[in-house]
């Protein structure tokens, strides 16, 4: 078990070097010339200015020294200055991240709470009416464009029926709770303001469902198929012939074994979720890093969007590290080997 975890942690080293290296290459060579990008077209003719700029930012040094400087800065949290907001990118990320964490967590919870039971029921009542319904819903989830779902959802539940609130994190005119975590639901509870908590939660429902749709579909599909694969195994037949209760067979013998692919997909779909956040947040005026990334892309703010890219890559690596480590607890064979 320890060896497995240590090996997995050691793998982080090449992974992090690789990710920073790719990001370094993209940020050095993709904007055809950083000097041009930073100083503007007119200053490029001024050779003295260009030389001074190159010296100041270390662009006259060999690439590997530049890379080391880049990584050193990154470790210190220096991701450059946003061209649009004139603030350090890391500060901007800190400001916008909580809203995304709140929305993403709610979406992930919804996706798991709906997707896993749907997948299980679908598999044990194969070809029943419930199975058909859950298959259709999961197919809609993985096929419908998230931005379109958002618009249709807003049109029906906000515009026509008025059941759910419109865009934004709180009702218009309502002040946010005193900032502690910047997760409005948590902060509202911390100061004991229950109606504010409900308002924040109310505003999370529609964007949460829209963002969850794709992952929910994915989780339902993978749970169903891995359950179907496990119910045919010999040990399930053995359990049944021992006369165990059906619920024990399903949860202890089938579901636990079907869980590993589901957890894997969960980790991988976290990336999808953050990608979906760009579209969802843009439509729901949700002040998270998705909207920040969108604004940065539209205003050609390269340092800002590269900051978001790196942040999401790191989150993805971290989440998948947790997923891999969770295998140890799910699969006893890994504990020994």
């Amino acid at each position: 078990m320890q060896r497995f975890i240590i090996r997995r942690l050691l793998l982080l080293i090449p992974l992090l070097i690789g990710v920073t290296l790719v990001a370094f290459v993209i940020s050095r060579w993709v904007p055809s010339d950083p000097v041009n990008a930073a100083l503007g077209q007119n200053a490029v003719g001024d050779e003295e200015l260009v030389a001074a700029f190159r010296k100041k930012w270390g662009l006259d040094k060999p690439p590997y020294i530049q890379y080391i400087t880049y990584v050193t800065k990154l470790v210190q949290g220096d991701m450059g200055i946003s061209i649009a907001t004139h603030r350090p990118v890391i500060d901007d990320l800190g400001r916008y991240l909580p809203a995304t964490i709140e929305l993403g967590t709610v979406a992930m919870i919804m996706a798991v709470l709906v997707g896993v039971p749907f997948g299980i029921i679908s598999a044990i009542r194969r070809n029943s009416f419930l199975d058909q319904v859950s298959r259709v819903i999961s197919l809609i989830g993985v096929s419908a464009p998230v931005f379109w779902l958002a618009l249709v959802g807003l049109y029906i539940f906000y515009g026509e029926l008025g059941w759910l609130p419109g865009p934004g994190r709180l009702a218009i005119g309502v002040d946010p709770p005193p900032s502690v975590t910047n997760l409005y639901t948590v902060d509202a509870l911390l100061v004991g303001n229950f109606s504010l908590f409900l308002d924040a939660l109310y505003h999370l429902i529609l964007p949460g469902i829209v963002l969850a749709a794709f992952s929910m579909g994915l989780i339902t599909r993978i749970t169903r198929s891995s359950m179907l694969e496990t119910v045919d195994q010999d040990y399930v037949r053995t359990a049944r012939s021992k006369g165990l209760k059906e619920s024990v067979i399903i949860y202890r013998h089938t579901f636990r074994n079907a869980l590993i692919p589901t957890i894997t997909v969960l980790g991988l779909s976290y990336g999808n979720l953050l990608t979906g956040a760009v579209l969802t947040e843009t439509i729901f005026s949700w002040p998270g890093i998705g909207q920040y990334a969108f604004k940065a892309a539209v205003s050609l703010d390269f340092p800002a969007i590269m900051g978001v890219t790196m942040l999401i890559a790191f989150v993805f690596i971290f989440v998948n590290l947790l997923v891999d480590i969770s295998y140890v607890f799910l699969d006893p064979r890994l504990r020994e080997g």
Partner: protein
Amino acid sequence: MQSTTRSGLSDRGKIKAAALTGPQMRSKRSNFEAIRYFLRRNQLVTIGIIIIVFWIFITLAAHFIAPFEPLQQNLVDRLHAPNSTYLFGTDQLGRDVLSRMMYGGRISLPAAIVVVIVAGIVGTLVGSIAGFVGGTIEEIFMRTTDVFMAFPTIILAMAIAAALGPSIGNAVIALSIVWWPNYARVVRGLVLSIKENEYVTASRAIGATEPRVLRRVVLPNAIAPVLVLATLDLGNAILVFAGLSFLGLGPEPSTPEWGRMVADGLAFFDQWWISAFPGLAIFTIVMAFNFVGDGLRDALDPRLRRQI
């Protein structure tokens, strides 16, 4: 013997027929029958194929069947609800939504196909070499795959758009960079199991070189799952392209493109038809690719469900 009795051929006739048709003819016919049997049992695949063919036809024939010019503005008729002249209504500039919708797949469909083909080829090469050769090369290849897997598709595409300017070409490049790792992972897994087969040992025993074993013996057996993955993936690639152009990071604003058209409707919330119909187009074609991909995967090998 039985089949000849049933077909009523004499012994001589049987020999003659066998000589005429030969084994090839028979296998072709049974292939055709197998496909028919498969389609009858998997109606969703049939429906999916019909939808895909429908959209490809509409997209290719848009010039001939669209009732109006997709770019033609008619400000007098702006924001009309669906009616007998404009079946799907008009947008904020009085352009016919139906006509624009017919042209709307001309960018994202080919772009998605290019990305999937590039990713499929690169991923298959990386994955098969890693799985076949093993050792240090496998480690290096697969760790590189992990690195590219960590980058978020749409956001990296946005970063490239921010650096090089938004265009479909740049979006295709950006997405190809991050799209291949999935294929590399699946193909490596397949190659690892294929290379244990006895026919691989046999081909080595008769003196085939390693590259030849990989190319002629191992890879052909990995192609079918890759095609299934690509079919399922086409839907995803269309979704991502539609998302990029919805955000304004794809083609020019006035271009009739499905994602772009949905974005046009954003400012005209009560005129639901502006965004509802193009959104429906994306939805149906992505769903169709999922129908076909699912059906093929289940038919191919149920055990692949885990991998793909």
